[in-house]
């Protein structure tokens, strides 16, 4: 490609990513975004200004050398680009799909000041997909064995990133997963139309080839304890990445009715247990022709709404208690949900679920208005007195967040936790109140994003490496 001037680059439009037609895509669980082909990727990459000071990298919780990999894409060196990404990110084909780039790397992009930022997410996805399509794996340098063993509890994003870094440093790593499938929220939570499951398996397969050992069907806490891992199972250190898996319920009358689901249960039945398949053994309610509401405004709420549409729900309405401006979900997913026909109602909050003979029939909501900013800095929704209405619904999916999973912390009283149940850690090293035990991801922060968990897993891996070294000397 001929050399483009800075002005030329700034004049170029952001390259749109091909999407499946909304009419077709709501009929199945295949991926919505088709991703760039190589020509589009090179075109988009050529917009990069290759800034001297790469502010985009500051916006990335794992510090991927974004400018460097994008230059390699622009030059057509896709394996080279993959190698750069792999230095810092163990799950690039996942992050390229699910990261909220608009508030991270792309949010910082200089091009975004006047026009549209460079599509870092689409490019990351392209590089990782290209690598997988060609079955080449970027050569990862593994340090000589240290003889140290580390147990990682939970195979979600935090655990995978911690394991990936530790194994590169020469430590032996065993990842314990409670469920029968690896990946944590990537397996049970994020639907296949946004994150195909073979991609998750491929990323985990790559870690396995690098030497990470995985064991499913192991729940640390009620059976084998943290202490057992250190005392009898011979591990020198432990990383806890058990996530924020305990669904919150609004605590309003009628939430025990049949038809009221937590988003976790609804998505687990569909994603992990494949309930969308009529032959699956695990059922989900027959949504065909049934009015459905989803309560919440995050990515999980949007995922649940779009999943309900794909299961044939008659009318899917998202109910969010603040206004559209405060919607925490990724912009792209909100747009996709709208294209597919998800209705959205803002400034409403449920106060009761009403049913007949045990089955949900409607949700009573009160209308809200925005008041002063609350602790999160967002305007606090306050009820408008007397503004109450009933919304017809046979199914209500609650996606108002998750509390930290209590199973491990309850079984380990010596592990310091906050009032909210999150594990207290040193923010730099991830070390907990127990020497040699580290934690990261949602179990330390409450519900956040995949990429934040990856960042925490990396920091803890560095902390663990340091700690192991200090034990030897």
């Amino acid at each position, binding site marked *: 490609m001929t050399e483009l001037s800075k002005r030329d680059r700034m004049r170029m439009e952001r390259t749109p990513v091909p999407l499946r037609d909304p009419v077709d895509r709501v009929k199945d669980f295949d991926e919505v975004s088709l991703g760039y082909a190589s020509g589009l990727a090179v075109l988009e990459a050529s917009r990069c200004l290759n800034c001297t000071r790469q502010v985009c990298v500051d916006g990335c919780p794992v510090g991927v050398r974004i400018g460097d990999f994008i230059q390699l894409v622009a030059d057509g060196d896709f394996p080279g680009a993959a190698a750069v990404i792999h230095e810092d990110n163990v799950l690039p084909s996942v992050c390229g799909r699910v990261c909220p780039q608009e508030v991270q790397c792309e949010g910082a992009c200089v091009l975004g000041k006047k026009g549209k930022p460079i599509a870092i997410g689409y490019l990351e996805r392209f590089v990782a997909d290209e690598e997988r399509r060609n079955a080449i794996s970027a050569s990862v340098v593994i340090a000589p064995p240290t003889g140290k063993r580390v147990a990682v509890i939970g195979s979600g994003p935090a655990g995978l990133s911690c394991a990936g870094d530790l194994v590169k440093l020469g430590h032996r790593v065993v990842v314990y997963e409670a469920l*029968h499938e690896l990946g944590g929220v990537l397996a*049970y939570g994020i639907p296949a139309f946004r994150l195909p499951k073979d991609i998750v398996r491929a990323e985990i397969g790559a870690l396995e080839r690098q030497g990470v050992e995985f064991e499913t069907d192991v729940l640390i806490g009620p059976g084998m304890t943290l202490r057992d891992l250190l005392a009898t199972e011979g591990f020198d250190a432990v990383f806890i990445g058990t996530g924020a898996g*305990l669904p919150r319920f609004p605590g309003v009358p009628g939430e025990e009715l049949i038809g009221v689901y937590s988003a976790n*249960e609804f998505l687990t*039945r569909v994603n992990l247990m494949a309930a969308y398949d009529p032959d699956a*053994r695990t*059922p989900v309610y027959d949504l065909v022709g049934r009015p459905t509401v989803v309560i919440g405004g995050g990515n999980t709420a949007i995922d649940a709404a779009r999943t309900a549409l794909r299961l044939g729900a008659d009318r899917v309405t998202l109910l969010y208690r603040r206004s559209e401006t405060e919607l925490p979900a990724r912009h792209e997913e909100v747009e996709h949900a709208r294209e597919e026909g998800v209705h959205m109602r803002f400034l409403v909050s449920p106060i009761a679920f009403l049913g007949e003979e*045990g089955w949900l029939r409607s949700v009573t909501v009160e209308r809200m208005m925005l008041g002063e900013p609350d602790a999160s800095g967002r305007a606090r929704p306050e009820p408008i007195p007397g503004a109450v209405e009933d919304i017809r619904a046979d199914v209500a999916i609650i996606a108002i967040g998750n509390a930290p999973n209590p199973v491990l912390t309850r079984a380990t009283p010596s592990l310091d936790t906050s009032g909210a149940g999150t594990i207290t850690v040193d923010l730099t090293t991830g070390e907990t109140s127990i020497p040699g035990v580290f934690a990261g991801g949602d179990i330390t922060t409450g519900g956040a994003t995949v990429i934040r968990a990856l960042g925490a897993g990396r920091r803890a891996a560095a902390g663990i490496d340091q700690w192991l070294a200090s034990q030897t000397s």
Partner: protein
Amino acid sequence: MEARFTVRQVSSLGPDIHRIVIDAPRVARHARPGQFVIVRPTSDGERIPLTVCETDPASGTITLVVQGVGRSTDDLLSLGEHDHVADVLGPLGLPTEVDRFGPCAIVAGGVGAAIALPVARAWKEAGNAIVGILGARSASHLILVDELMATCDEVHLMTEDGSTGGAGLVTDALVTVLQEQSIARVFVVGPIAMMRAVADLTRSAGVPTVASLNPLMVDGTGMCGGCRVTIGGQTRFACVDGPEFDAHLVDFGALAMRNTAYRTFEACQRDLIKAAPHDETAS
């Protein structure tokens, strides 16, 4: 993956009720009375919660009692020796509280006996006298009678058709026991209607009672909230906060209602629905 969970022994305890001994060394080493496992028969199967009836840490096996009540539990009934299941996860849930309470009554209906047996053994071992009350539809549905007889100080058998022991319900026997003896604590497990009747009885008699609940469950680790039960007006998760709760605070009506959520689905999945005394179907 290597076959980790191999079936070692299968025996029939009654109509469509099997006792299955299976390799699960970690569970065998760590499980305590009252805890349960999640079993997935095949790699495309459902996750089925089952109580651990016995453990043998030395041989690394656990004993499960399974009643065929749906497509997935039928899969478990079709298992023979040397077959294996895809997954066994456990132990799950909180163990039974074990202490020196004084004389205790253990009340079990149908295959609930499999859940009651380890509790009876633990309470007996802690120095409590145990009255066992075991009920079922008919004599052939009474299971683990010898084992409970060997553990309890006295055992009352009740069948609805009078084919063995007293004719009637477990509550009939419990009324007599509560009249004749001073009972410090009751453990109850069985069909929801039975547990509710026992809870009503012991509430008025002022005897602390623990019920082992059997809501529908998916993951068993606190993640889905499908097993939520209402305890004293609060939403609790049976998998991580239970499965045992103060029977006097349990909203049995809500539990019974929620357990019907997939009846239609299950009916389609199976040619014949059998009324189940202790419906441990996961869904």
